């Protein structure tokens, strides 16, 4: 079971307190009507699914209830960084936040 550092609570908690929220940094278009069918399908369904570092959303659903983002290595499952929603994606090479443990 993963240990996940919640950047909102400032504590490390077991994975069962959290729920996975899919890939991060996929903003809902401001004007969906302006997108053609292909662009809309890209937004809806297409994800990068990387082997390696991935930015993803988590929610501390059984804690503070907040969504936040994390960089996680999908090969090793290692968390590289956690950061709050709205903050830019950290550089994974230099990230050494508390989530990096």
């Amino acid at each position: 079971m993963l240990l996940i550092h919640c950047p909102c609570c400032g504590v490390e908690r077991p994975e069962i307190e959290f729920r996975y929220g899919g890939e991060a940094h996929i903003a809902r278009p401001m004007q969906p009507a302006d997108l053609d069918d292909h662009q809309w399908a890209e937004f809806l369904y297409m994800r990068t699914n990387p082997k390696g570092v991935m930015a993803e959303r988590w929610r501390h659903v059984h804690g503070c209830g907040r969504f936040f983002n994390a960089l996680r290595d999908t090969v090793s499952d290692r968390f590289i960084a956690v950061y709050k929603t709205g903050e830019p994606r950290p550089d994974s090479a230099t990230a050494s936040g508390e989530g990096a443990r």
Partner: protein
Amino acid sequence: MTLSFRTSKGGRIDRAKSVKFIFDGKTLVGQAGDTLASALLANGIHLVGRSFKYHRPRGILTAGSEEPNALVGVAKSAAAAAAGQSVPNLRATQVEIHEGMVIVSQNRWPSLGFDIGAVNDRLSPLFVAGFYYKTFMWPKSFWNRVYEPFIRAAAGLGKAPTAPDPDRYANRYAHCDVLVAGSGPAGLAAALTATRSGARVILAYEQGEPGGSLLHDVGAQIDGRPAAEWVSAVIAELAGNDRVTLLPRTTVFGYFNQNFIGLAERVTDHLADPDPSLPRERLWQVRARQVVLATGAIERPLVFPENDRPGVMMAEAGRIYANRFGVLPGRAIAVATSCDSAWRAAFDIKALGGNVVAILDMRTDVDPALKEKARAHSIRVETGCTVTGVKGTKRIEGVRLGRISGDTVSSAGSLACDCLLMSGGWTPNVSLHSQARGKLDWHADKGAFLPGDPVQAQRSAGSCRGIDGLAQVLADGARAGAEAAQAATGNAVDVPAFSASGSEVSSGWWLGAVPHDRDASRVRAFVDFQNDVTAKDVKLAVREGMHSIEHIKRYTTTGMATDQGRLSNMNALSIASTALANEIPQVGLTTFRQPYTPVTFGTLATTSRGDLFDPVRRTAIHDWAAAQGAAFEDVSLWKRAWYFPKSGEDMHAAVLRECRTVRESVGIFDASTLGKIEVVGPDAAEFLERIYTNPWKKLGIGRLRYGLMLNEAGFIMDDGVVGRIAEDRFHVTTTTGGAPRVLAHMEDYLQTEWADLKVWLTSTTEQWAVIAVQGPKAREAIAPLVDDIDLSTEAMPHMSVRQGHVMGGIPCRLFRMSFTGEAGYEINVPPSRARQVWDAVFANVERLGGCAYGTETMHVLRAEKGYIIVGQETDGTVTPDDVGMSWAIGKNKPDFVGKRSLARPDLMATGRKQLVGLLTKDGKALLEEGAQVTAEADPAPRTPALGHVTSSYMSAAAGRPIALAMIANGRARHGETLHVPMPNGAIAVEVVPPLFVDPEGSRLNA
């Protein structure tokens, strides 16, 4: 067999305390401290089971958890066995005997000695590698009727117990600085070093007694005293430290992410009469800062023809049985080896009075000191010599000898013996390192994979990383313990030095099939004993195109038994590498996975069984309904009253009566399980505008609206009635099962997309109990109880909400709404007062000729009106238009979740399935929910169905069965006849609009 094979002295068993147990109906005697394997061997019994595929007789091969053959069923007592309470597939080498234990051998019928299934052995050409994929593929229709039943009857291991598991299983979480897996010399040195530095230590070991190899390495001395005494002193020091947890009989079965370690502790299996307050087994979930793996090495079998016959045993196992358990594994013992350590077994057995007839070493360059020692013991030695086969089937009677000369072998006669101890050298036990995702490095000089750099906070110590020699292993354990403790605590750690003597380093090893002079097409040399995989099978797999070890493994099943190939992998790999003419590291090694050895379901489930499997949610009205004799159904975690049968009524009669009563007078229904969310804030209306398809901004205060919620893909995900309580406050209801999902969906958009909106969401599901009162007399039923709300239709029309009080001051939110098509109310009150209100309303309902109704009646009544249930009519691929609810879409809204998707071509295509009603032509047949609907009564095979029945009930109001269905192009088919094919013939149905009662809706406004 009447003569005991017990030595006259030595061993760690309690010779004063005999233990009676039953094996295959026969009472046998062992000593306290025996494992089942050692006790059977003391009684001269090697034959303990039949193999999985060929039903070949099999004996005890090892003395540890890697045992592939000696799998048995164990019951605690004769009474437990009679009650069907037993545990199958336990390894006899791990079962500690106690008085009255009842053991059955497995995989044989009618008896161990005479087994019908042994015919499989004669049919072995049928069962070669990949036989599942070949033999049983044709003809196709034979699979279900012939092949599968045959395979199931013939193969398989133990029998599952017939009675529910009577035992209790416990669960514990723990944290520590250093977890040490294994209590051999490396593990003890590591644990001792870490403990002395002040670290919190957990030491887990598989067996009942700690010490590992030190318990049978009788000549070894550590710090000037016998090794076993040193073990006792170390354990005493560890046990006396309250920062140390010693876990005997505990398997480290799983190494998970971030040093999360799963341990299975067998608490009471070894006790005849355990304290009933103790669990049978305990699951430990440990978060360890650092882990030391001291899991030792496992001796490797020699792959020669008939190497699986009872009496053939690993050399070190023979040494363990002799030294630790005081049992000689035979009357005339031969040793076949390619390494030094097996010679020690011969010497120790000889020293205990055993008869060692010969040591046969494949090597020619054997250490002269060993030969000298053998001469001193008067043991015949043959070098450059191997075993090429055995005589005897249920017990060996002798071995064939072969003289090795280069790649060829010539017969060198035979040798009479009833036990053969074999050794192909040692395979470092890297399972847990591999589970922890550590890479393995190939060391050609040692013929072994050793742990590479760890990925997690762990390190290997001792022979599991290829260290040999007691002094070296102790030093390596101390080093690992110090490193781990320092990394975990930051403290400086003293590394103790241990002196050791009397335990020699072992050299020499052999990998792969042993050469022989036999007819290769006729003999079988086993690689994986438990799965009955032979050297020939591995070669065949290579010939048939399997070039990766991952493919060879799956094709032959080698390494897929409960030992995960700890005995067989290296031999299989070597045979494959030879056949492929490729180096071993290029052929690869399969990954070891959790669990290390099988773990019982009980341990993994712990207390999550029966009533504790899932939480149960009950409403404030639950006890009342139960007292009324209601039947309940599970809806998500809730218990909901399903129907209220009167005496003599079945479900059908009760539901018809309840439905009729609601439509004719009034019914009362517990709707408390509905999800409720309070949506509050200056932007609450704007938020709902974006989340639901409907418009909200113009909804007046005190008004209700049905809300439809889509996911972003445009499909219906939930629905419910929403009331505007104030300008900035909405009372949202959701489906019973959908409440958490809806709240998470709302929070997602609020937090991550529209963080600028000032809105707060609060789950209020358990803050409001909901009493629904429905029917023409609903107002009459509640009016006397309402304090301060004008119930007239003019003041409070259909789809409105008022805040007020009932019964002299109980606060309520009163909804006028309907899910039945009748006029009705839903009274929301605090759960603490709900029962009081319910009782009062029910008294009125009863006085008016009404009744309580359950969820089944609710379902029927709504189906009569064509109201959908999300999850019943919809399945995650249904749009509002599909269910005729385009009216719920706010046409002027620029955007809402799912809006853009509704304009995708697929979602606007013609021919989509649409909600319709179905009436059976005969007016009597009740359709099955889920049944397919077709155009033809007897469609040709592979004709796609037009759709399926989603709801089907007997309708009291319609006087006939009714059904809802999702049918391709359904709205254009009103009046058409379609068919519902069933096993007894198709049922003809007419497609009608999904509305069976009061099409004008006039009853709602009464």
